[in-house]
C-alpha cells in the first residue's frame, strides 16, 4: 500500500492510531547492540511464542485491521539506553521495566505480568544505593535528567516498522517541510541553532545554505554513519533503532537544498545498522516516501546505503566521499570546501546521523522549541554514550549545558566500587581528558573546547584512579598511528614520534626534557597536518599533560605509574592483611603466577607475573596492590 500523497499519509496515521488505541499492553523488547549481545532476540522469540501458547492476543505488527480484542503488541526496539542491565523489556502503559531478562524469565512475564497484571519484583532494577527495587523508567535515576530528542524514537518505536514510525508521528515533519519553501526550511534550521553532532559543531543551517548557493547541476546529501570514535555508539543506536527518522531528516535536507541523490555511509562494524537502514530505505521506496514524486510533491530523492571499509579517517568528510566513490579513503586539503565541490566534485551536504535525526523535531516543533533547550551557542540536546568506570553505563541524551557532575554522578550513579573519580574523556581520539576541577563544567561545544577537550561525536568515558593518563594518551596515539592514512608527513611521522615518546615514559625510560618535547611536537602536528585527524591527534596527550602533569612527572622522575597500569614500571603484590584467600585471583591469573590455598594468604610469583592486572581487577577485597 503506497502513500502517494499527504492525505494518504494522514489516513494511514489515523488508521494506525485507531489500531493503537485498542492495544491494551505494549511490550517493547530492546534489540540494541548491547541487549542483542546479551540474548534479546531469543527473549523476543520466546515471549511471542509463550504468549501465543498462553492464548494471549499477541500481535507483532501494528496492523490497522487487527481483529483481536485488547491485543498485546510485542515489538523489537532500538537501544532503550540502560544497556548495562539488559536485555530490557519495557511494558506499557504500566511503565514496568524488566532488566536482565533471560529466556527463562519469559514464562513468568507472560503468566504473571501479561496475563495477570502482576509485577515481578526480582526482574526490576535494583537501586545500588538502598537496594530498593524500582518499577519503571520514571523511578530510575539513570533516566532522570534526560531529555530525548534525537533519541526520541530509539527504544520506543519498533525499529523495523514504518507503521510504528508513522504512528508515532513519523513523516509529519516531512509533510510539513514539503509545504514550505526550501528557503523557509533552511531558515528554520538556521534559527534553531542546530550545530553538527559529528564533532566539529558547524552550524547545520549555514552548511545547507552554502550548498544551495554553490553552483552545480546536481547536489548530494550524505549521512555520516561512520562513527569512528572507538568508544562510542550513539549513531549506531540511532541507525539501528530509529532508521526512518534519519531518512526523514535526509529527505527534508534534500528538499531544502535541491538534491535527488543521497547516501548513508555506515561503519563496517555495524552490520545490523546496515540491515535495518537498507530495509527502511526499501520500505520507503515501496511506499512512495523515497523515489519520484515523494508524497505527491515534485521532490525526487533516492538513498543508497554504503558500507564503510573500516578506516577511522573515512569519517572525515572528504575521505568519506572518496570512499563512496570507490577509492582509497584519503582526505583532501580543505581549501576546497565540500559543500561546493564534494561528492563527484558536486555541491554536497554531509551531516552526521544525529544531526539528521534532530531535523524532524526542529521542523515539527519549530526552531524556537529546539533553541529553547541547551545553551545560547549550543542549542538543543546531545546524545552521549556514557561508559567506562561508571556505575550506570549506556546511551543518554541531555540538554546541552548539563554539568559533567550531573551526568557522571547523577545519571551515571558515580564510580564503580566507590573508587575516586579521576577524569572523563570526551571527543574520542580527537578530544581530551578533564579532571575533577572540571566537574561543574556545562557540557557544550565551546565550554569543552575551552577546557582543552572537545565535544566530538559524544563518547563520554569515565575514568577512576586505576586509569593511567599516560596510558590513555598512548592508547589514542597508537590508535591514530594505525589509522593515519599516511598522506601527510606531520601526521604520519609526528604521531609515530609522539607515540614513541609516550612509550618511553611508560617503560620508565623517560627523561625530564621529554615532556617539553611532547608539547613542542604536539603543537607542531596540530598546525601542520592536512586533515582533522592529524590536527587533533595530539589533543589527548596535550590535554592530559596539562591536566595531569604530576602523573607524567611520576613516570619520568620516579619511574612509577601511580595508577598501576604501565606494566614495565609496576609490581603487583598481595596485601596479606587484606587478602581473604578467596582463590578468585588465582583462577583469573593468565600465566598462573598466583599460589595460595583456600582461606590462606595468596602470593604472586614475580618471575611469572606479566603485570596484566587481572588479579587487581577481580579482587573484591582490594588486596592486590601496585607499586
Amino acid at each position, binding site marked *: 500500500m503506497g502513500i502517494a500523497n499527504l492525505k494518504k499519509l494522514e489516513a494511514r496515521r489515523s488508521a494506525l492510531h485507531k489500531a493503537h488505541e485498542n492495544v491494551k499492553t505494549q511490550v517493547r523488547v530492546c534489540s540494541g547492540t548491547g541487549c542483542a549481545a546479551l540474548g534479546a532476540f531469543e527473549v523476543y522469540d520466546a515471549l511471542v511464542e509463550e504468549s501465543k501458547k498462553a492464548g494471549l492476543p499477541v500481535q507483532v505488527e501494528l496492523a490497522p485491521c487487527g481483529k483481536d480484542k485488547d491485543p498485546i503488541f510485542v515489538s523489537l526496539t532500538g537501544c532503550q539506553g540502560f544497556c548495562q542491565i539488559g536485555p530490557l523489556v519495557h511494558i506499557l502503559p504500566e511503565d514496568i521495566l524488566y532488566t536482565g531478562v533471560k529466556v527463562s524469565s519469559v514464562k513468568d512475564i507472560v503468566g504473571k505480568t501479561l496475563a495477570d497484571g502482576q509485577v515481578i519484583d526480582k526482574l526490576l532494577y535494583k537501586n545500588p544505593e538502598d537496594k530498593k527495587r524500582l518499577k519503571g523508567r520514571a523511578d530510575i535515576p539513570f533516566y532522570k535528567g534526560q531529555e530525548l530528542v534525537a533519541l526520541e524514537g530509539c527504544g520506543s518505536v519498533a525499529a523495523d516498522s514504518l507503521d510504528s514510525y508513522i504512528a508515532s508521528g513519523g513523516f509529519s515533519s516531512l509533510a510539513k517541510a514539503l509545504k514550505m519553501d526550501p528557503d523557509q526550511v533552511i531558515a528554520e534550521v538556521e534559527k534553531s541553532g542546530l550545530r553538527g553532532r559529528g564533532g566539529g559543531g558547524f552550524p547545520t543551517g549555514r552548511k545547507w545554505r552554502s550548498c544551495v548557493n554553490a553552483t552545480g547541476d546536481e547536489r548530494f546529501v550524505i549521512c555520516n554513519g561512520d562513527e569512528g570514535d572507538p568508544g562510542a555508539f550513539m549513531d549506531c543506536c540511532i541507525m539501528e533503532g530509529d532508521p526512518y527518522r534519519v531518512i526523514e531528516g535526509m529527505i527534508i535536507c534534500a528538499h531544502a537544498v535541491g538534491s535527488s541523490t543521497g547516501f548513508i555511509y555506515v561503519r563496517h562494524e555495524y552490520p545490523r545498522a546496515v540491515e535495518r537502514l537498507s530495509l527502511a530505505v526499501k520500505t520507503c521506496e515501496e511506499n512512495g516516501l523515497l523515489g519520484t514524486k515523494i508524497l505527491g510533491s515534485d521532490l525526487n530523492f533516492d538513498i543508497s546505503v554504503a558500507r564503510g571499509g573500516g578506516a577511522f579517517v573515512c569519517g572525515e568528510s572528504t575521505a568519506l566521499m572518496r570512499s563512496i566513490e570507490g577509492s582509497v579513503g584519503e582526505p583532501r586539503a580543505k581549501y576546497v570546501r565540500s559543500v561546493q565541490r564534494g561528492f563527484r566534485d558536486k555541491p554536497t551536504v554531509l551531516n552526521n546521523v544525529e544531526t539528521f535525526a534532530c531535523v524532524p523535531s526542529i521542523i515539527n516543533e519549530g526552531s524556537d522549541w529546539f533553541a529553547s533547550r541547551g545553551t545560547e551557542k549550543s542549542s538543543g540536546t546531545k546524545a552521549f554514550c556514557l561508559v567506562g568506570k561508571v556505575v550506570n553505563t549506556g546511551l543518554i541524551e541531555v540538554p546541552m549545558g548539563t554539568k559533567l557532575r550531573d551526568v557522571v554522578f547523577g545519571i551515571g550513579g558515580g564510580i564503580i566500587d566507590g573508587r575516586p573519580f579521576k577524569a572523563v574523556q570526551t571527543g574520542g581520539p580527537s578530544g581530551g581528558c578533564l579532571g575533577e576541577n572540571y566537574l561543574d563544567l556545562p557540557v557544550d561545544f565551546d565550554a569543552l573546547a575551552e577546557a582543552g577537550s572537545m565535544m566530538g561525536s559524544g563518547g563520554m568515558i569515565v575514568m577512576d584512579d586505576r586509569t593511567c593518563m599516560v596510558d590513555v594518551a598512548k592508547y589514542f596515539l597508537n590508535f591514530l598511528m594505525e589509522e593515519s592514512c599516511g598522506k601527510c608527513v606531520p601526521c604520519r611521522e609526528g604521531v609515530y614520534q609522539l607515540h614513541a615518546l609516550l612509550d618511553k615514559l611508560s617503560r620508565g625510560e623517560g627523561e625530564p626534557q621529554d615532556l617539553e618535547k611532547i608539547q613542542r611536537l604536539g603543537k607542531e602536528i596540530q598546525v601542520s597536518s592536512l586533515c582533522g585527524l592529524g590536527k587533533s591527534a595530539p589533543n589527548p596527550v596535550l590535554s592530559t599533560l596539562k591536566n595531569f602533569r604530576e602523573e607524567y612527572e611520576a613516570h619520568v622522575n620516579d619511574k612509577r605509574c601511580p595508577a598501576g597500569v604501565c606494566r614495565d614500571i609496576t609490581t603487583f603484590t598481595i596485601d596479606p592483611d587484606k587478602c581473604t584467600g578467596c582463590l578468585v585471583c588465582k583462577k583469573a591469573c593468565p600465566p598462573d603466577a598466583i599460589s595460595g590455598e583456600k582461606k590462606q594468604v595468596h602470593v604472586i610469583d614475580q618471575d611469572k607475573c606479566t603485570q596484566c592486572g*587481572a588479579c587487581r581487577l577481580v579482587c573484591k577485597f582490594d588486596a592486590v596492590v601496585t607499586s
Partner: protein
Amino acid sequence: MNVAPAVDMDRVGAVLDRFEKGERSHLVHALQDLQSEIHYLPKEAIKAAAKYLDVPLHSAFSVATFYKAFSLVPRGETIIKVCLGTSCHIRGASVVVEDLRIGLGVGPGETTQDMKYTVEVVNCVGACALAPVVIANTRYIADVKPGTIVKIIEEG
C-alpha cells in the same frame, strides 16, 4: 606457516555476478562480499574483482590493503575479535588478549596451527556499555571476566 587452500573460483564468480559489470564504485562492496564468502581475500579473488569491475589491478590491491576490514591471508574457522575500543581498553581488554595468548597460543593477527581460531583486535563494536566485549564469529560475549574467555569460546 599455514598453507592456503585452493580458491574456489566459481564461488568468486558467483559473488561478483551480484554486481554490475564494469561499475568501479562497487569495488569496496564486492571485496567485502568476497571476504565474507571466503573469509579472506586471496590474490586470485582480488584480481577477478578488478577485472570484473574494470578497476586497474594496482588500485584494487591498494583498496584491499588500505581498509582494515580486509585480510589477505587465510583465517581460522572461528574469528575471535577482541574489542580494544576505549571503553573496553580501560575495562581490562588487555587481560582478554593475554588470556587468549596463553590459552590458545596465538596473539592478535595470528591463527592457530589447526586453522580453528584467528584472534583479531577491533576498535569498538558498539556495545561499550558491556565492556570488555569479544565477538566470536557472530556471537557477542559481553563483560568478559579475566580467566574466562577461552573456556567460553571452546564450549561454543
